């Protein structure tokens, strides 16, 4: 029997106004992307607390993707600027902890960019798959 | 099995790096071409015939060597198709198929015109040799 390779688990945070709509558009256009990406809807990318990302890694996610409106196009004017700054800091800290920077990514996807969303997910999944499973932050106590 | 024409087409597209499908048939390339009257096939026809795969007549045409490689068509094409690169790739296909240069060094003094700018001579080396 062949041992099935574990597919990487990726959590994606998408802002309601641009990226979630972009992901919907990818669906409307029937663009395929890997099914191991699960989207969590947030009102704005600035709602993504660094602890959400830490929690995801702790619970066994192999990669975390954050998508928001393009800088300057935020529905709330400035939300994605906060995201950009926060995530720059967080990602460098994660890298220090040993979480490769390829496991985290911020991407600006507008509501019109279904193709970009699918492409981003494809690239990101490939990058995370190449790194293999994430064990560094995984909290083994919560595994069933 | 692909036929010979298709292989040539693929090779031309690969060498030139041009996406012929972007052409919207506006004819600006031919409108701008300074060598138009000398040519049997014109820049827009090169693009179109390569797209349809009807390359045989192009390979036989003298137009290949009439193209000045001035790149006016490349500069002005609104869609960024770059017809001159297609012509160059077709030319290269012919020269490679023949296996020899279009002109030998001995032929050159006879065709040199004093008015030809230096740059044209340099580009001639590219055009007429392997």
């Amino acid at each position, binding site marked *: 029997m062949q041992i099935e390779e574990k597919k990487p688990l990726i959590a994606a945070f998408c802002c309601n106004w641009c990226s979630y709509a972009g992901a919907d558009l990818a669906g409307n256009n029937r663009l395929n992307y890997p099914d191991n990406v699960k989207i969590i809807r947030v009102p704005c990318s600035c709602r993504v607390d660094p602890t959400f990302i830490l929690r995801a890694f702790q619970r066994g996610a192999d990669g975390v993707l954050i998508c928001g409106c393009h800088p300057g196009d935020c529905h709330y004017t400035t939300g994605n600027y906060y995201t950009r700054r926060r995530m720059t800091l967080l990602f460098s800290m994660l890298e220090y902890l040993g979480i490769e920077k390829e496991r985290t990514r911020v991407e600006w996807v507008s509501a019109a960019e279904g193709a970009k969303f699918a492409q981003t997910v494809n690239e990101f999944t490939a990058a995370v798959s190449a790194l293999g499973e994430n064990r560094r932050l995984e909290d083994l106590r919560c595994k069933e | 099995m692909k036929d010979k024409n298709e292989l040539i087409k693929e090779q031309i597209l690969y060498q030139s790096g041009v996406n012929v499908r972007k052409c919207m048939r506006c004819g600006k390339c031919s409108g701008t071409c300074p060598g138009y009257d000398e040519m049997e096939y014109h820049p827009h026809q090169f693009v179109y015939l390569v797209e349809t795969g009807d390359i045989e007549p192009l390979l036989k045409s003298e137009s290949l060597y009439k193209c000045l490689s001035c790149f006016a068509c490349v500069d*002005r094409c609104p869609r960024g198709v770059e017809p001159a690169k297609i012509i160059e790739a077709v030319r290269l296909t012919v020269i490679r198929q023949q296996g020899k240069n279009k002109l030998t060094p001995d032929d050159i003094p006879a065709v040199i015109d004093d008015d030809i700018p230096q740059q044209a001579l340099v580009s001639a080396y590219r055009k007429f040799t392997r």
Partner: protein
Amino acid sequence: MQRIGVFICHCGSNIAATVDTSAVVNALSAEPGVVCAVDYPYMCSASGQDMIKEAIKEKELTGIVICSCSPRMHEATFRKAAAAAGLNPYMVEIANIREQCSWVHKDKQTATEKAIVLGRAAIAKVSLNTPLQPGEIPVTKRALVIGGGIAGIQTALDIADAGFEVDIVEKKPTIGGKMAQLDKTFPTLDCAACILTPKMVEASQNEKIRIYSYSKVEEVSGFVGNFTVKIRKKARFVDENKCTGCGLCTEKCPVKNVPNEFNLGMDSRHAVYIPFAQAVPKVAVIDADYCRMLKDGKCGLCSKICGAGAIKYDQEDEIIENKYGAIVAATGCEPIDLDKFDEFAYSKSKDVITSLQFERLMNAAGPTGGVLLRPSDNKHPKTIVFVQCVGSRCEAHAKKGKEYCSKICCMYTAKHAMLTREKYPDTDVYVFYIDVRTPGKNFDEFYRRVAEEYGVHYIKGMVGKICAENGTLKVQASDLLADKQLHIDADLVVLAAAIEPDRSTRPLATMLTASMDTNDFFTEAHPKLRPVESPTAGIFLSGCCQGPKDIPETVAQAGAAASKVIGLLCKDRLTANPCVAHCDEMSCNGCSTCENVCPYHAVTYIEKEFRMPDRTTKIRRVAQVNPAVCQGCGACTVACPSKAMDLYGFSGKQIYAEVDAICR
């Protein structure tokens, strides 16, 4: 403990073809808190909704999860259904298993697994939902229209017609916009001024409409129903109330060589001027860049000559602050710069002009009094070449021109060709086209008449280059159908330049927080179903600022935008989004971080008295959120160092639960 109902939609075969819905039912019914799980072909149908309502009542559900299409599609539908059954509408969560699952995955097994995970996440979230009550916001019953072209005028007239007050802000000294510069309008050839100027007058005389000309929007704050807008009324150095528009000053002013922008620089005007005869408001304006009195303090002739005493050299910009319930963007378009198209010799020869310049040349009020004379030597052109698609339909990487079709050029070029041949039958007219696009009512008939009856030479092919030589324009072009290269000696060349959004549009969009596309056109809330609304509530779109349009389309869209505005202003109160931030006062340490990050200034700090455990009282500084102003972005929730801020509907706990469910 919550009692949760899960409803899985097949969406016909849209979901059921790739997701095994019965497997989803089985898996999700085992989740904690789930008391019923069912699937149905169309949950959004009336019978599907009835099923949900019955289940809510029968099973006494406290929360429901719908596994269906995107929440952007039917969240409102299901919330309404829940409310009808007596369940708080905010106890509804949607798991998007269509757009983000069945439509993007092909393998049934993995798609089903993913649908189950998405369902679990939604169940985990809904278990932590709290019932929310939407607040109410009063509506200011006044609208603002930005831009006074035909789009803005029509929108304002229609809103005023319904009995609401409306202000127009126009950056130029007069309303009228681009249409005022046109000669005739296709396909009926009505004179543009004859149909536009009565509307301009109507707008100025309507008591519900206020026109701020020579003004611009400086700052916008607030939200739907309650916008506060600062308008900068630029100093025109003429008292608007005193000026009678007699025009005496404009004749006597000694500065005569100012390029006249209304005629696109083809003639000149004085430093004090009225843009055109039918300007509204018909009030003079002094151009501060040229006026000798304002520059050097020497002259003052206009002040001496003005019988009404309207000239005020010391006038300053005025900032006016008004409140509005709705804002309509009607900023219009302008032709692109042709600097990068030097193959057409536009900057080298005066006889290569744009179509808008041609309009002025043909216009009876234009620089030549309506006689077609070419700008360089004022001679009648005998051969005219029209070039279409200049800067339209260009590839994005070419970095010159626009990718889109400007839509109006085919028709106005046909009109120009017809008018030329009608007035001057001895003129040879060539039109070079890539495609002729005339899909409008009576448009193709018009174009065919131009080609058939007026003998205009329509040539398929593009002009490659134009050289100006000894007063003639050597046009080199290709005729693709005859497979010839043409060399035409033309006297006048008219370029149908692409149109782009007015340059004021981008800064305005930032102020309005309305989104734009890559070409700087405003994006509509839905490309098909909500074409006149911006995704930002309370902002509406009218005319070319949303995309290229001809006059009939602009007027139709202006009316549509007006009807949307009227629909909004008719309401006394709006229901506010209850998914807003709130502060846990016991955890708040009064640091002001949230106040600083809030883009809406929704957070303020108050001093509040607290009872301490030892029965003493203490006054502490805590944050307070104004739920009517808060838009629910969540910036403050993340910024808060003590995690006192949280967001209703997207609370930290809920998102942790979702993350946990996904990563299980």
